[in-house]
């Protein structure tokens, strides 16, 4: 709704985002293979790092202790797959529904509001992301890469990562002109994936390490790593704060832009 409750962060005015999620659940019942296949990409990365690079790299130090390379990258891959999944769900799929399938136009002729639509899409991305996070955690446990029970906290951490990137992805998609712009998404997520202390410690950057902090994924990786190690420090709060802040800004932009686009 355009006029109502604009003082509140726009995300809180969503009343029926669950309807959008219900629609996706029904639609994907026939395409569950697509959902399942999303699980394999991070798994392939993990296995490749473990089998191939593990011997070459040897041990890496995390929070003062030496861990095998696969135990070092596994939490980071879990975090990045939460990012990738959220981006994927909130860009290409949303662009399709927004511009080509025009699913939102139909929804907005009902009591659904643009905020409901935006929050529904983001909720769906989170739901799907949690599915992947849980299965990835299972694989980590099976491979002996879990270091403490605290690792369960990695799930809410991944939900927060998902929220952040689904928001960013959705907001960005509302500015896209067409499919060609999807290349920007790939080119933008790749440096985040590679340079968020995912594959090597931030300390490797020496005096440039602060640049890494600009990547929201870096904060997510730090959270998941802390969860897996079971070592909590005050910096955790800062990481959470950064992610929360980015998601609130991104979600507000997303809902407002959707309003502009759909209610012409």
């Amino acid at each position: 709704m355009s006029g109502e409750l604009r003082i509140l962060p726009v995300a809180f005015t969503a009343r029926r985002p669950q309807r959008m999620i219900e629609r996706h659940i029904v639609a994907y019942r026939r395409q569950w293979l697509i959902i399942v296949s999303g699980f394999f990409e991070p798994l392939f990365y993990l296995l490749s790092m473990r089998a191939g690079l593990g011997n070459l790299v040897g041990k890496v130090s995390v929070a003062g202790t030496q861990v095998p390379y696969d135990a070092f990258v596994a939490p980071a891959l879990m975090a990045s797959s939460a990012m990738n999944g959220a981006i994927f769900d909130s860009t290409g799929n949303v662009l399709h529904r927004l511009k080509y399938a025009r699913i939102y136009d139909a929804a907005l002729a009902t009591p659904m509001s643009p905020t409901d639509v935006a929050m529904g899409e983001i909720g769906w991305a989170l739901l799907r992301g949690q599915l992947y996070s849980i299965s990835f955690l299972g694989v980590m446990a099976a491979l002996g890469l879990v270091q403490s029970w605290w690792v369960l906290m990695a799930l809410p951490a991944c939900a927060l990562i998902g929220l952040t990137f689904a928001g960013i992805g959705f907001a960005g998609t509302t500015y896209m002109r067409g499919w060609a712009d999807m290349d920007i998404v790939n080119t933008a997520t790749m440096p985040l994936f590679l340079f968020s202390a995912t594959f090597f410690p931030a300390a490797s950057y020496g005096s440039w390490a602060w640049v890494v902090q600009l990547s929201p994924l870096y904060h997510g990786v730090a959270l998941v790593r802390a969860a897996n190690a079971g070592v909590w420090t005050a910096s955790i709060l800062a990481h959470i704060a950064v992610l929360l802040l980015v998601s609130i800004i991104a979600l507000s932009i997303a809902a407002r832009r959707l309003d502009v686009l759909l209610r012409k």
Partner: protein
Amino acid sequence: MTTGAFRVAGWHLALYRRLWRMNLLSSFVQPLMYLLGLGVGVGALVDRNSASGATLGGASYVAFVAPGLLITAAMALGAIESMWSVMGGLKWQRGYHGIAATPLEARDIVLGHGVWIAVRCGLSATAVAAALAYFPDTRSWGLLPAVPVAMLVGLSFAMPIMAFSINTETDGAFAAIQRFVIIPLFLFGGAFYPLSQLPVGVQWIAKAAPLWHGVIVARGFTTHSAGALWAVGHLAYVVAFAFAGTTLAVRNLRRKLYS
């Protein structure tokens, strides 16, 4: 090669003129980011580990990875360029039907698209090679012959996938090819570490695909360790894929357009 094929390639060029900026970004910047992230970043960890020197044949890790990235980038580009754009030509924008209504034939369309993909792979491999030549660690005369190897690898994936894309009805399978063929080969195809690190069964699967053959030949060139006969043998395997794919694609397209 027919002149018709070159006319079709020209058609692709005309379409591409509207998109080249973004494409250049993804096919040039992405491999370099991997080089920086994995080659340099992980390289520091690898080179620190004294045990790994022997496994890599004495090369630094970044020098080991660089030719692998050159080749995998060509594979990815070749694969992408033979999926959605082929389906688009047949189903969405229907450009192929437009061409088929002229004296040009299925063979011209397939070869023309192949020429175009080879050019794209060659251009982006040249750009990546130029960037690699800039850094002392990865500088090598072997980068020059590595570029045509990248073009062949690009075709060895593009042509069989094109044959598939012509026949397939929906684009759902493309994502599956990406996820279950291209990405696993990228990760397990010998670009980031010697295949000897992997279980034997996985090694054989990796060796069955043309990627690994292209990677070790390119690496042989850049590290000056390639024998001529050895290189020709591996490249023949790569070319066989491109050739078989082309034959199949022509056959499939002929059926699709004229039946």
